[in-house]
């Protein structure tokens, strides 16, 4: 069952009816049944793995929490009889046990994720190494199909496991509530990766049907379907054509292909989010937002705070901060500050953390050197900005640049958008050298196309381009308007009968332009992760 199919719409509406008809205390059970059913319909063979993750996390968190409780109880009972050393030893033993449980569970679940996602990458590297010594031998690839959403639910579960280990989140006592947290169907394919406290707060509260939630949720679903089925799916074959044939196209055509890709991936991913957030809104559940007008960012760092927000937050919380504030790193920073100055000393620990974050982010996105390079390039830009901050400030002051002026902000936005566009295509064209060749083509071929056919050789029908430009334009305008308030606040000011007609027209446009495009293209882009 795909999210853009009629059967998914019917699934959601059947769920809504059952969800609100049954008693409120059973609503989370309805969600659990729906999530497991959804998973079974989409990935039957993946069920054992998600159950393993949910079960291992459940027992690990309960065990760690029980050790903490035991420790508290033991100390309270025996405090007068224990010396300081004995108490420290006891605490250390409990801490070691908790750490062992956390690390073992972490390793088990990451091993499953790596087996499915990265086994072929590692086998390729081993083959490469073997070929240096022995040209005839090689290791054949395995053909394992990754369980649906493994990257997303594994990261979400690991986050919860670490939160319980840190003591910032209590362990869930109910196994089935824990299972729902891991398998909640709107998040399973493409996130967002949610915090346990935030998500469980939403999942397990009582939900009341309101007209506002229903209508706003439905509006958002339709908007998401438009983004995915019309904008992303019409652009998909054009982008693929440019990626395949860039070497024979003019530089300006290749550049247009890159721009199309930026629009496509945004429409695809954010479209999915809109469909799922809309679904959740109808269920009176607030899902974490994953996008905040990312193409209006003024720097790469800001872009990554607005694009796939939940993944960025996850990496920040569980990788960046632990490395940045680690004792050895802080010591390194202090020593560096003494020798090289304050700025150097303060920036070095952050730089080390950022290098790790960005290489792992790249690797999370894809098991290939081109994805690792992509992560590295993003990290490089962010690290460079960090180091050059004092220089940039001095330059701006010397040039008397007023940062609040719209011209300067427009320059920053356009510059960031172009940079992000060029970095994005690096791993998508094929190998790393293909990606570099693609970018090189843009900057080395300046032939001017003599006709529309030469400019857009991949275009099969002009009306499709007009449709895409119209709806992408709609997205752009709505993003501009959202600076001040959500677009739906503007939309809901329109009288209800006109609103309904506009939604019906949007639905018909999705039917006429979106269904054919969807039938001829693949699924969601981020579902591959």
């Amino acid at each position, binding site marked *: 069952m795909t999210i853009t199919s009629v059967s998914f719409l019917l699934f959601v509406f059947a769920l809504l009816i059952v969800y609100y008809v049954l008693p409120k205390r059973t609503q989370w059970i309805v969600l659990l049944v729906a999530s497991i059913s959804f998973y079974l319909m989409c990935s039957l063979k993946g069920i054992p793995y998600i159950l393993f993750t949910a079960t291992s996390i459940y027992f690990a968190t309960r065990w760690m929490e029980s050790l903490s409780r035991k420790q508290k109880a033991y100390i309270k009972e025996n405090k007068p009889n224990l010396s300081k050393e004995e108490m420290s030893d006891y605490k250390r033993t409990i801490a070691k046990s908790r750490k062992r449980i956390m690390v073992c569970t972490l390793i088990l679940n990451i091993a499953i994720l790596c087996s499915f996602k990265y086994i072929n990458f590692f086998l390729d590297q081993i083959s490469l190494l073997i070929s240096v010594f022995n040209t005839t031998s090689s290791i054949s690839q395995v053909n394992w199909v990754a369980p649906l959403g493994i990257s997303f639910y594994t990261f979400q579960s690991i986050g919860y496991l670490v939160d319980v280990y840190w003591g910032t989140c209590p362990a869930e006592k109910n196994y089935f509530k824990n299972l729902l947290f891991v398998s909640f169907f709107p998040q399973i394919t493409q996130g967002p990766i949610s915090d346990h406290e935030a998500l469980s707060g939403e999942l397990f509260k009582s939900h009341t049907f309101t007209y506002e939630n229903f209508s706003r949720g439905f509006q958002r679903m339709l908007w998401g379907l438009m983004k995915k089925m019309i904008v992303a799916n019409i652009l998909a074959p054009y982008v693929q054509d440019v990626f395949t044939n860039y070497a024979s196209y003019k530089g300006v055509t290749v550049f247009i292909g890159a721009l199309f890709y930026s629009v496509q991936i945004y429409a695809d991913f954010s479209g999915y989010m809109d469909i799922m957030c809309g679904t959740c809104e109808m269920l009176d559940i607030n899902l974490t937002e994953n996008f905040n007008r990312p193409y209006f960012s003024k720097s790469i760092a800001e872009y990554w705070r607005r694009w796939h927000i939940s993944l960025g937050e996850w990496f920040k919380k569980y990788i960046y901060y632990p490395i940045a504030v680690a004792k050895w790193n802080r010591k390194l920073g202090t020593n560096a500050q003494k020798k090289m100055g304050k700025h150097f000393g303060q920036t070095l620990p952050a730089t080390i953390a950022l290098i790790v974050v960005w290489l792992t982010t790249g690797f999370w996105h894809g098991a290939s050197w081109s994805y690792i390079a992509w992560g590295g390039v993003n990290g490089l830009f962010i690290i460079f900005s960090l180091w050059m901050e004092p220089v940039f400030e001095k330059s701006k002051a010397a040039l008397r640049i007023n940062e609040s002026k719209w011209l300067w902000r427009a320059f920053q936005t356009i510059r960031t958008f172009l940079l992000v566009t060029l970095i994005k295509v690096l791993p998508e064209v094929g190998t790393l050298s293909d990606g570099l060749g693609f970018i090189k083509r843009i900057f080395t071929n300046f032939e001017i196309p003599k006709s529309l056919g030469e400019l857009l050789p991949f275009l099969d029908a002009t009306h499709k381009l007009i449709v895409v430009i119209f709806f992408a334009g709609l997205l752009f305008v709505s993003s501009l308007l959202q600076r001040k308030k959500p677009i739906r606040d503007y939309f809901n000011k329109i009288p209800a009968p006109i609103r309904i007609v506009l939604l019906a027209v949007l639905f018909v446009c999705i039917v*006429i332009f979106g269904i054919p495009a969807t039938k001829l293209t693949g699924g969601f882009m981020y579902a591959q992760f």
Partner: protein
Amino acid sequence: MHNFKKALLSSISFLVCVAFISGVFLGVFFRSEVAPYDDTSTRAKLAGEIDFIFCGASHGQSAFVPDIADSILDCTSYNLSGAMMPIHGRKVLIEKEVERNPVDTVVLEISLETLERDESGIDSVEGDAYVLSRLDSFSERLQYTASYIPKKHWDYTYSISMLFGFSQLKSIITNAARIELDRGYVSHGSKDVSIPDEMISELHNSERIRMPLEENINEIKQIIDFCKEQNVDIIIVFTPLSDSVLWKIYGEDEVYSYFKEFCEDNNCSLINFDLLKSRFEHFNDTNSFSDGYHLSKEGATAFSPVFSDTISKFQTGEDISGLFYSNYAEMEQYSPYN
């Protein structure tokens, strides 16, 4: 309760709006006959007069000129063909016309492409949409959809029909010229489809023709059985492909033998105009075809008398085997590219 009532009212209003817009576009598509291939009222006017039906897909639609056939065969013929028409679509339209006309001959055009095409695949949905537009009533369309279009393609059928209705509404509003049918025949412009000298050896036998799908053979059998029940003479034909296409494809003899055997087993005549000995005299790659597969106006004007003459001889009991090569391998020896 108030929230629920409001939501229900809004949902119903939304569905009514969607139904209204759908009704407009689908109504235009199904009823307006602005579509290039929509001939419902033409056929209705001729009901009771047609005694010769030629039915196929686009190959047939561009090949058979009823006016020419009528004068040679002394009949009132109709070209029932349609673009991308699936075999089950041909069956439905043939049944419909046989029921309301004194039909004594049905010529079923089948191509090598038709035999290997998966008619439950997404590519066939467009052909099904055209058939839907040529049916008379809502119930007929519903029955056709339920019987022949896979459930997984219903949304795509709805989408294509809406798109066609939208395009046709635009044509009506802008008063755009429509493609005129001549009792079902559509004329095509001509194009030189010759193979350049330097590509001749490279392109020889470069595309394989696959064996027919069993579902397609079963559907053809249903048409044969229906015609026999109605005492209607059924003849299956292959219309001629260009020399360039025949040069490129291979595996045709395997398919042709298989299909010939099927026709013999079912006591049905098969005439393959690809193997016509005089084809090199009547058709050429310079102006007889529009794209290698479809006859141009010049090609159809040359083909129709040859076809009609051959059918006439065949129906009077003359032995026409001498007019044809026995197989593709023999025919290829005389190809201008050899």
